[in-house]
């Protein structure tokens, strides 16, 4: 069974690679699952529209956004979004407002997960970290400024 699925997988990727080489598919169509439009968006509103179909997020005190006030190294800024006190959390997105492409990551949760994410992100300069939480079909957000003393984008 394992070998069969392995063979199937290689054949499928092989076919996709051929298609890419022949110019039939652009890489973005191959990665259809990955929301290329949202991650290429230049503004936070565009990114939100692509991910959630709306950019209207209400500020919420229930989202606990933990990020340092001053980050010595913007390339590894620890960010924690804790929305466990909210019910029906479906998704969390983290954005860095002034990055060239603001959307950093999106997390979609199933029944076995709680609305909590901790990660590290790259920030090029001093800017706001924005956490978007989708709970019960509505968007909520929390924002915090992080002062970056060394940029994280090859500066």
């Amino acid at each position, binding site marked *: 069974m394992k070998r069969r699925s392995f063979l199937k997988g290689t054949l499928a990727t092989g076919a996709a690679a051929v298609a890419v080489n022949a110019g039939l598919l652009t890489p973005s169509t191959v990665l259809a*699952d990955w929301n290329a439009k949202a991650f290429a968006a230049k503004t936070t509103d565009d990114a939100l529209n692509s991910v959630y179909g709306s950019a209207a997020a209400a500020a919420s005190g229930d989202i606990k956004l933990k990020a340092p006030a001053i980050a010595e190294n913007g390339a590894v800024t620890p960010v924690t979004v804790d929305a466990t006190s909210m019910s029906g959390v479906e998704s969390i997105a983290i954005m860095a407002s002034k990055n060239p492409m603001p959307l950093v*990551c999106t997390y979609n*949760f199933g029944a076995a*997960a709680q609305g909590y994410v901790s*990660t590290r992100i790259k920030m090029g300069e001093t800017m706001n970290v924005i956490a978007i939480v989708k709970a019960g079909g509505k968007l909520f957000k929390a924002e915090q400024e992080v002062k970056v003393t060394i940029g994280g984008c090859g500066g």
Partner: protein
Amino acid sequence: MAINIRMRGKAKGGVAEVKALIKHEMESGVRMNKKTGKPYPAKFINNVKVTVNGVEAVNSDWSGAVSANPYMAIMLNANSGDEVKISLTDNTGDTGEETLKV
């Protein structure tokens, strides 16, 4: 090439905080090579899936703005003995996976 993942986590009262450290350069495709004037080619993890006993719990998309050697912590509804599996893919098709009994 398989991507290396290190996982930690213990279930306590039906909740498990699972932490993972992933070894990956996370090259965003934006950083310029000053010698050639061209950007370094993008190579970053763009999809991370977490399952509990085979049921999908978290499906996450990342951009190149997640730090190099990414750290991730999530909270799962899991009891001790449950099997948590992380599987990830980067934009060049490299994959990695790791399982842990919480």
